């Protein structure tokens, strides 16, 4: 079972990665990178790294890729984007996909009541939970954490200075 899950998501990850370098339009490359990131997130769950899996979706596939897509659309050069023929049949695929998504959400909402949480003590100390990540981050790994905050400050200042329009 676990091997089957691994193989499915590994194929999706490698396929999206190959599609990333095969596509000529950078927007499609960005979308296939999101596919790779999502399947890696699923693999992180199989490795019992739930917190990292959630961060992968929220920070990577959410924040960073939105920044990429934003810049790709901002710097829209016509020679880099050959005219894409609109595939009309794709819009009819939207209905089954939306149905699957809604069904999935309803299933989660229905089943969430039946989940019994594990006993307090053992869940807290398992590797990969928010509890263990937070405890280690703010005790043993406090110095890298603080260094990261300095790094982010430098990145903010650098991005503002670089992207600012020159006063003429």
């Amino acid at each position: 079972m676990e091997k089957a899950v691994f193989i499915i998501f590994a194929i999706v990850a490698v396929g999206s990665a190959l599609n990333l370098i095969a596509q000529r339009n950078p927007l499609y490359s960005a979308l296939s990178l999101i596919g790779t990131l999502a399947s890696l997130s699923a693999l992180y769950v199989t490795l019992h790294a739930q917190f990292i899996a959630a961060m992968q979706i929220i920070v990577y596939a959410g924040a960073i890729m939105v920044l990429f897509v934003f810049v790709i659309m901002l710097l829209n050069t016509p020679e880099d984007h050959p005219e894409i023929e609109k595939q009309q049949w794709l819009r009819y695929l939207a209905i089954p996909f939306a149905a699957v998504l809604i069904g999935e959400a309803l299933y989660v909402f229905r089943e969430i009541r039946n989940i019994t949480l594990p006993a307090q003590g053992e869940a807290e100390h398992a590797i990969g939970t928010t509890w263990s990540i937070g405890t280690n981050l703010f005790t043993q790994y406090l110095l890298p954490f603080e260094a990261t905050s300095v790094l982010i400050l430098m990145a903010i200042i650098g991005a503002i200075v670089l992207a600012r329009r020159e006063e003429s």
Partner: protein
Amino acid sequence: MVPLSWYLILSAALFTIGAVGVIVKRNVIAIFLCIELMLNGANLALVALSGFFGDIGGQLFVFIVMTVAAAEAAVGLAIIISIFRTRESLNVDDADTMKL
């Protein structure tokens, strides 16, 4: 249980695809996306080793790699915007002033 080597092979495959992309792509944003792919390949190896050895350090390192990737994306995209302003192009071959 999936053996550790499978995760490491997948990680190496993703890293290699990213490295090939950095070499063959000409669009600077596509090169940047390939760098993100290489970071993710390394992240998968770190999380897999962390899970198999029961050491939380690998996952914390991934956490820090993610923040570095966010910082890198912010600065890198700012550089791309400023290159685009001066050269009106996203092709890396147009930005070779510093080449010998």
